[in-house]
């Protein structure tokens, strides 16, 4: 029974849209594949070589065990210093990143005249190497914690703002509409429609950045603020891998604690 309906579904089925769109996806996919292949050629990627060389990695790992537990005492103070500077740097960077992330989000400010400049500033700041940031801040404020905090703040700012504005762009539009409908101006609209929705992500970016900053402690060495970075260099410089292992384990412990706190906080907020 060739019903009218069957004809109808068949027409839809075969008028199925977008062979051109599918082709475009396929083309993009192949292009990316080609790029990957060419890059592999250029840098001489070889699984075989990796497989053969793998045992050599063991040499180093063996030297890391057992960790030098006594070294823990030595690095406690630098780790505390690092944490302290990381807290302040992350906080300042995160606070600064909020307005810029909002400006850069397309669903908050529809105008390209606002979002593009904001994004350009973000790109610019993210591009500045931490070495350069450190040089500039040291020149201005001398050595010590202040340039360290500022360098970390600059670094955190770029990263959080980028992650944050993309998170903002993916929020649910419904509540925003509701806020528009009650006659909220832009700021109220953000405060009551946007912020409650992005708080979990923001918290997790903040804590993530805090963790990165604790690990990115080498910057602090650059500005004479001490910190754990110096000890990494020192132990590696003397090939004392057992001590390096201690630092890794210590940092891991700190990071895991931050992780636990971060998860607890996120569960509360989520």
């Amino acid at each position: 029974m060739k019903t009218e309906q069957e004809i109808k579904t068949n027409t839809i089925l075969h008028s199925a849209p977008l062979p051109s769109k599918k082709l475009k996806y396929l083309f993009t996919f192949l292009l990316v594949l080609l790029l990957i292949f060419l890059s592999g050629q250029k840098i001489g990627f070889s699984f075989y070589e990796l497989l053969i060389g793998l045992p050599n990695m063991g040499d180093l790992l063996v030297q890391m065990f057992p960790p030098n537990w006594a070294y823990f005492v030595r690095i406690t103070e630098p780790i505390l210093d690092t944490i302290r500077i990381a807290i302040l740097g992350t906080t300042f960077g995160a606070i600064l990143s909020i307005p810029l992330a909002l400006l850069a989000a397309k669903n908050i400010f529809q105008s390209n005249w606002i979002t593009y400049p904001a994004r350009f500033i973000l790109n610019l700041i993210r591009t500045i190497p931490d070495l350069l940031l450190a040089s500039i801040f040291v020149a201005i404020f001398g050595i010590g914690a202040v340039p360290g905090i500022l360098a970390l703040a600059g670094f955190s700012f770029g990263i959080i703002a980028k992650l944050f504005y993309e998170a903002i762009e993916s929020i649910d539009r419904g509540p925003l509409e509701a806020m528009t409908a009650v006659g909220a101006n832009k700021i109220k609209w953000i405060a009551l429609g946007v912020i409650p929705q992005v708080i979990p992500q923001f918290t997790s970016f903040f804590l993530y950045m805090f963790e990165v900053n604790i690990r990115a402690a080498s910057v602090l060495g650059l500005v004479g603020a001490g910190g754990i970075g110096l000890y990494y260099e020192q132990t590696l410089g003397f090939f004392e891998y057992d001590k390096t292992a201690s630092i890794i384990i210590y940092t891991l412990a700190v990071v895991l604690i931050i992780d636990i706190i971060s998860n607890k906080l996120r569960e509360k907020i989520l």
Partner: protein
Amino acid sequence: GCGSGSDDKAEKASGTASKEEKKELTVQFVPSQNADTLEAKAKPLEELLGKELDMDVKVSVSTDYNTIVEAMASKQVDVGFLPPTAYVLAKEKGAAEVILQAQRYGVNDEDGSPTEELVDFYKSQFIVKKDSGIEKVEDLKGKKIGYQNVTSSAGYVWPAASLIDVNIDPLKDVTPVTFKGHDQAIIALLNGDIDAAVTFQDARNVVKGDYPTVFEDTKIIKFTEPIPNDTITVQTDLDADLKNKIQEAFINIGKDEEGRKIIQEIYTHEGYTKSDDKNFDIVREYNEKVKTE
């Protein structure tokens, strides 16, 4: 070009390469810290060496000598440019042997300009502000001193020994501040954050561009004993023939007009002279002297 290289790499890794004819020589270097200009160029050396040795040479540049030593220990790098302290540690690990040392022009003690004389050592210096009233090393007791990492010969080991010589404990009797980069130490000195900085001779040239009056505003109160220059070392599995060939090749490059220009521009080397592990006993001595734990 790696597709062809992978086979002999594999052999190297299994440690049999030394017995057979080597097809490719891997060279890695860290430009010396005691230079006021640095260039990350590998190609020119690759060509020079390739021509001299008549084999494929692969040169790469690194910013950290630790990786070179480790790579030499795993026979992944055949020839490495190492600073003296790193060489001593590498030797201790059984990873490398010295074959050559770089030569440079000496530095004029008065104004930091280069001298005419080729030397295979350099020195470290104590710098203070001109108007600080600090005249000699003894005056540094209780002051704030800017060091480099404790692995640095010019930025810590030699100056620390100088301090010990006058009965000042380099870590306890002064306030030590560690910097990353000799230029940063000098800037901190200019800023008044520290009372003295120890750097290679003469690191003030690095900041001269940013702070033209640096030579007028500061003075040197002490030079240390000579520190051996950068080494050229080879990994231990390399056979003697090849080792000699490499030694000669570098010396020839230093003598050749064109070659010399290149090593001058890129590595601020003026030539190479044969070297021996004994030359570095002094380094071991100093390391021992300032050892803290």
